[in-house]
């Protein structure tokens, strides 16, 4: 099994969710994060104090999937999250040793 972690632009969440549902991935966990990268932030000014805000709001999506569909998941996320503008985000795929559904105790792919 793989854990697919995608950092995306916040307003793309719904499209990504729909694309994943379409390939049969029905679960995910989403975190509000701040991203730092090539994309330029903005300047905030408070009575003359200027702060450059380089950390931009992003969403981090975590999806556990069976190893064989990890590539497919990466593919649909890429397609649905892309705007072509800088700051579209990244996808990282990492290994999972075990998975478990708390309610039933089912493990590994049954747990997803």
């Amino acid at each position: 099994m793989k854990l697919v972690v995608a950092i995306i632009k916040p307003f793309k969440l719904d499209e990504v969710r729909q694309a994943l549902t379409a390939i049969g991935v029905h679960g995910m966990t989403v975190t509000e994060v701040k991203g730092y990268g090539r994309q330029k932030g903005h300047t905030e000014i408070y009575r003359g104090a200027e702060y450059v805000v380089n950390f931009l709001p992003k969403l981090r999506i975590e999806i556990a999937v069976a190893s064989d569909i990890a590539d497919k998941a990466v593919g649909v996320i890429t397609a649905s999250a892309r705007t072509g503008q800088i700051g579209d985000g990244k996808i990282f795929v990492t290994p999972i040793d075990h998975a478990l559904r708390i309610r039933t105790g089912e493990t590994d792919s049954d747990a997803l």
Partner: protein
Amino acid sequence: MAGLLRRAAAMAAPIGLVSIMASPAKAAGSEINAADTAWMIVATALVLMMTIPGLALFYSGMVRKKNVLATMAQSLAAVALISILWVAFGYSLCFVGDGPWIGTLDRWFLAGMTMDSINPAAKTIPEALFMLYQMTFAIITVALVAGSVADRMRFSAYLLFSVAWFIFVYIPLAHWVWGGGFLNSMGVLDFAGGLVVHLSAGTGGLVAAKVMGRRHGYGTENLSPFDLSLAVMGTGLLWVGWFGFNGGSAGAANSHAVMAIIATHLAACAGALTWGAIEWSTRRKPSVLGMISGAVAGLGTITPASGFVAPWHGIVIGIIAGAVCYWACTWLKHRFNYDDSLDVFGVHGIGGLTGTLLAGVFATSAIGGTAGLFEGHPQQLLIQVYGVAVTFVWSAGVSFILLKLVGLFVPLRVSREHELEGLDISQHGEALQ
């Protein structure tokens, strides 16, 4: 019809704060009454509180987090800009001189206004106070319009549009209805601004929403409010402030003011209960947003009628307000597919319209000196219809032209990117954390 209306007007004894009037004059000092002055200063403070922080909170509590400050900025800017224009020429054009179409510039920058001058429309308080009180009405009317274009209008365009709208929509209407203009002469009843404030702002908002188009994500994304508790606070302050809005429109600390306030309060209560009840029966839950929307609908709707009807009429009018405005915000808006972000038309436009008509229905001689339909004076209702038509057409037409004109100088709407990022950052360079 004009003849008929004119006759009806002659029958309807003008009453209340606002009546057919001559130019302000230096009055004998003894006419100014300290008690009325005390009340009217407070009423003025209450109406100012309706805009800041009242309306600023009510509106910003209904937008997304990224637009909270920008929404507040619109109310703030309306206060700052319109106040100065009011003093510069607005008051004079509205309330000095009684031509049918427009007042005079005799009192520009308050020229000639002394410690003891009065305006014939409010003989027991200083003219300066009458001017200030009326200023707060101009402010809130302009600030109301902003709700329709929340989340997407460029701040610079908003400022230009506000100034233009104030000059070409608010000033004429205020003069026509309250300042001795042709609707005033005709006997249109509008105690505290069903036409001048609510219908005109609602209509202006509707047109602006149509011209600017829908928000990105409207109908597809979750545009739900960030922090409705702000809207509840705002409603509380609006409600309390409305005692000054409708009560102060009596111009004195007397029973007439009290009766107007009771009707006002009851309409808010009935509106809140009605909207909540409809939601409960049709959607299984009464929402807080629904209750406050109903309250504000009741308040807006009773406004033109408040000083003319009996207190308990407030309950009836509030129930009607809750139902009609609910329908406007849910059915009408979807039917005509406009994105009036904060339902300025649905709540204030429809409320002001409905209340102006109902004033013609329920007007009670014992309260406001004018009889309505139910007291056997159907002509009054016709006059009210006429007032509504004039206000709607004028506000809609002029608002449209002004938006097109402003759009020649600066794009009305922010860029798609800025809209997604939020107006707080893009227009003001700051944000909630």
